[in-house]
């Protein structure tokens, strides 16, 4: 590993892929050998495939284990595709961690509703690890997950483990399913109506497609959760990751520097603005 990143946040250090797991057809989890790596749940790194480019990817591993830096990546563009095609032992550029993550301290003592859609479960996984590791610090813990189909469910084994916990409610739903699927089918917002939580004292963490987060935030608002307590992780094209370049500007905020996690109170007006 090159040590330069300590003094220049724009220069990636070189790490290596230690382990790789194919999660779905187009999704892979990379464990990166980066020495001791500390991050807050919800933060992201800039990952480089040398000769291809750099992309912002949320950390999806356990914040309590700094020896394992884990990213879960979906192949949607040239860089992310190249990242998912890296093999064990290959070099990878690493800058970070960046951004403001999930409000774990604010969540203490409250019911916590985590709503994830598709790959949005990956940036929420560190928060879930923290919630479960420090379970006594929180009220009810509810995880609601929406996916495209049963075949597209991310971290399926882990979801099953969490579903087996007596101190959490875990529900998944899919948009489309064959008749042999025995789970829920329908939009994830429907699960909110069924969930039991103390709305005035609840805090929500949302990550997924923007349109899903809008509907979920409104559904939570209808249940009585304050917009200031609904937190969303946003995604935009990020380049510098430190608020210099403006690529990820979203109205008055930069997603990389001021987020990626914001409250719905901060974003509601902006999300209603077309093509922003």
């Amino acid at each position: 590993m090159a040590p330069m990143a300590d003094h220049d946040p724009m220069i990636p250090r070189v790490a290596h892929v230690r382990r790789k797991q194919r999660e779905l057809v187009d999704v892979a989890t990379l464990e990166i050998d980066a020495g001791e790596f500390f991050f807050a749940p919800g933060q992201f790194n800039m990952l480089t495939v040398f000769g291809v480019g750099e992309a912002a990817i949320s950390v999806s591993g356990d914040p309590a284990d700094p020896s394992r830096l884990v990213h879960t990546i979906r192949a949607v563009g040239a860089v992310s595709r190249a990242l998912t095609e890296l093999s064990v032992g290959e070099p990878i550029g690493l800058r970070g961690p960046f951004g403001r993550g999930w409000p774990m301290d604010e969540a203490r003592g409250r019911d916590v509703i985590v709503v994830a859609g598709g790959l949005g479960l990956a940036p929420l996984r560190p928060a879930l690890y923290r919630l479960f590791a420090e379970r006594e610090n929180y009220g009810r813990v509810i995880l609601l997950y929406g996916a495209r189909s049963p075949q597209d469910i991310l971290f399926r084994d882990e979801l099953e483990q969490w579903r087996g916990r007596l101190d959490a409610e875990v529900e998944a739903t899919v948009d489309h399913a064959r008749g042999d699927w025995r789970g829920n089918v329908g939009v994830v917002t429907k699960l909110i109506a069924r969930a039991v939580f103390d709305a005035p004292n609840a805090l929500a963490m949302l990550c997924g497609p923007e349109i899903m987060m809008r509907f979920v935030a409104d559904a939570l608002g209808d249940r009585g959760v304050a917009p200031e307590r609904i937190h969303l992780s946003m995604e935009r094209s990020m380049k510098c990751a430190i608020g210099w370049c403006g690529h990820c500007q979203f109205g008055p905020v930069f997603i990389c520097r001021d987020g990626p996690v914001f409250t719905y109170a901060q974003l509601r007006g902006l999300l209603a603005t077309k093509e922003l």
Partner: protein
Amino acid sequence: MIEGLEHIVAAHAFFAGLEPSLVALVSGCAKNARFEAGKYLFREGESADWFYLLREGRVALELRDPARGAVTLQTLGPGEVCGLSWLAPPYRWSYDARALDNARAIAIDAACLRRKSEADPRFGYEMMKRFMPPLIERLQATRLQMIDIYGAHG
């Protein structure tokens, strides 16, 4: 028997807050129903003579596609209404409803409810206010499912 049903109808989330005289009108068209897991509440193409207020268990709404077999469109659970095709002509189910678990429901005679709605517009309007939200909700959910928000562009 009727008193018991009235209590059950009044306690169902779908009829929350319905005034007692209107609960009595609904209950006059209602009976209890049970379905073992795997049994069909109704089938595509059949006349929509009954619909169901689910009390226990989940139900899958399915379409049969020759290429893919049964496709689940939506699952419903306790507190929800199963079956909306009875609301508008030709009163025919356009999908199957299959119990995923052992299910209990209040079965409501659709023709009976339509008749009472015609006879008493206040009752009919109250029914319309109850059935419109799930209709709209399912329309909106279908739109979201159609645009494939978790697809590659998501």
